[in-house]
């Protein structure tokens, strides 16, 4: 098996889907000649040509709107938004049009499209190049929201997202693009279904739920606290909508304690949904209050490196939160 990076996993997944299905095409700013702002689509323009890897003008609203139109009429668009922070011009198209089409047509029209969105901090991007946007979209029925955290899942989930009959918001932890490496088989098709979470570390003392880059920091923290005799279970949610209640509840039934970690700010963040599920459905299993560790409630991630590190939860802070929860 070859060890590849997360962004390579993504690229391979897109490449295979482009190869498999002629209806698949990619549209976005600089996805073609330049190979993408993070070079996720590198080499695809050369391989598939300008009709299938389409450089668009700077117009997010239309990138998504055009995606919706083509999807309605039988195509399989992959739309790239360069940074999550730039998705808002397209918010209307995603929420008002893409998410509702199936419902308003009583299932007659569907929007099989993927919107790829690099998100998150840790690259010095500052106020307008660091944001996490999952909570906005996880709120919207009709959308699926996926966040891979490993090269294997990036490849397997992008492929499943392309094949999904509805709109998928595909969030990519951009700090991990080249940082996260992992094995991906070369001689078999990698498909990861949308929906199931993955238990990435089994444990008995408490359950830690995370996704994206934070999932890696949680694993790191779990290894640290293991030295202090705490055995944490770590769960990579992978799909935020629809969320895998079963795996979440089964884990907490076993451990009795839950910590949810995300870098998006706390209030109204995605962690609140997991906490609510546990409050409603796992009350009897809980031995301690559900805890959340999240980014601070400030309007955006400021630029200076110290600010950024105070903003983003890291293995140290996660380990501390785990120990506190275990001691409750």
């Amino acid at each position: 098996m070859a060890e590849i990076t997360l962004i390579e996993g993504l690229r391979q997944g897109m490449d295979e889907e482009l190869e498999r299905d002629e209806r698949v095409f990619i549209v976005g700013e600089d996805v073609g000649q330049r190979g993408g702002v993070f070079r996720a689509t590198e080499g695809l323009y050369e391989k598939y040509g300008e009709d299938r890897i389409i450089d668009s003008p700077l117009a997010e609203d239309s990138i998504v709107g055009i995606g919706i139109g083509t999807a309605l009429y039988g195509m399989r668009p992959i739309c790239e938004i360069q940074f999550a922070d730039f998705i808002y011009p397209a918010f209307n198209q995603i929420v008002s049009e893409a998410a509702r089409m199936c419902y308003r047509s009583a299932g007659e029209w569907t929007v099989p499209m993927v919107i790829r969105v690099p998100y998150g901090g840790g690259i010095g991007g500052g106020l307008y190049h660091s944001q996490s946007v999952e909570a906005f979209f996880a709120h919207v029925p009709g959308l699926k929201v996926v966040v891979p955290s490993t090269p294997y899942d990036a490849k397997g989930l992008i492929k499943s997202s392309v094949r999904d009959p509805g709109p998928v918001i595909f969030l990519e932890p951009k700090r991990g693009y080249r940082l996260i490496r992992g094995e991906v088989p070369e001689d078999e098709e990698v498909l990861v279904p949308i929906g199931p979470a993955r238990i990435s570390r089994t444990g008995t003392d408490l359950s830690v739920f995370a996704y994206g880059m934070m999932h890696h920091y949680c694993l790191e923290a779990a290894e640290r606290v293991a030295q202090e005799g705490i055995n944490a279970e770590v769960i990579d949610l992978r799909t935020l909508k629809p969320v895998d209640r079963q795996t979440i509840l089964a884990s907490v039934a076993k451990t009795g304690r839950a910590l949810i970690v995300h870098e998006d700010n706390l209030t109204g963040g995605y962690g609140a949904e997991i906490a609510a599920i546990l409050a409603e459905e796992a009350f009897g299993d809980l031995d301690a209050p559900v805890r959340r560790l999240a980014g601070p409630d400030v309007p955006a991630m400021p630029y200076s490196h110290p600010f950024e590190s105070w903003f983003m939860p890291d293995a140290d802070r996660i380990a501390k939160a785990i120990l506190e929860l275990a001691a409750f």
Partner: protein
Amino acid sequence: MAEANVAVKTLDKKELLRLYHEMALVRRLEEEAAHLYQQGKIGGFLHLYIGQEAVASGLLSVRRPEDHVLTAYRDHGVAIACGIEVKYVIAELLGKATGVSKGKGGSMHLADVRLNYWGGYAIVGSHLPLAAGIALADKYKGEPGVTICMFGDGATNIGYFHEALNLSMVWDLPVLWLCENNQYGMGTAVERASAVEEIRQKAEGYGMPNSRINGMDVLEVRGAAEEALGYVRENGTPYFLEVVTYRFQGHSIGDPERYRDKEEVDRWREADPIKIFRKHLIDTGAFSVDDLSIEEERVDQEVAEAVEFAEASPDPPPEALYENIYADS
């Protein structure tokens, strides 16, 4: 443009030298920024203004203190031309507490409202409606300022641009829309992204008076800007100025620049706005080579001192993370 040329001819030597100093300072600042980035002292994204210096310097040399200025994220040259001291710019690039935005903004969001410089904006096109709003406030309050809104060619493809241009005409707003057409939006050439190659044609669609000028000649920019600002001031209605320029570096540091060839870049480098202006100053006998060398040394010194100031400055304190989330009531 005839009148403008007359104005340029009457420029005094002091102003010519100030312009030269400012452009050389911006160039030196950008070279130093690239260096600091390579050393890992500046993080994130760094968009250099090298090649475009004549635009900000020419334009802003004729703005009045009451005129408001907004631009996009390629904003270092604009910040300097608006009067922000170079040391506060470099401190911001290094994320220090002494930076213009106290380390919160970084390269792309320099601003100082006391100088009527309302900042750089990183969401492309997003500041155009804001500019129209500032102009509406001026009009509403009966104040004399003109709002100068700068943006790139790429920004003219997003809806915000069209909405803002349209309503600035419908509502008669005193705005100078200034497009810095450096011929690329990131890796996409204008002709691959815009239905019209002359961006000024978009203003035609809104019935807005407009012109397109050479942005590599600071005096031409200055003359055209003087005329355009005069028009807006006199009529209280918008004007659209397209300034054709070129960025000599990649879109941001680390851009592999596969979308253009070296010959093209070299050709444009021949039109280096600082070299052209330098030659003009010498050829017309305004200054000697020695005069200008002294000025260049001053610039080097100024930037070196600014770097020293920035490096010696403290990091922001942790509590600053939570400051200014809401306005004090």
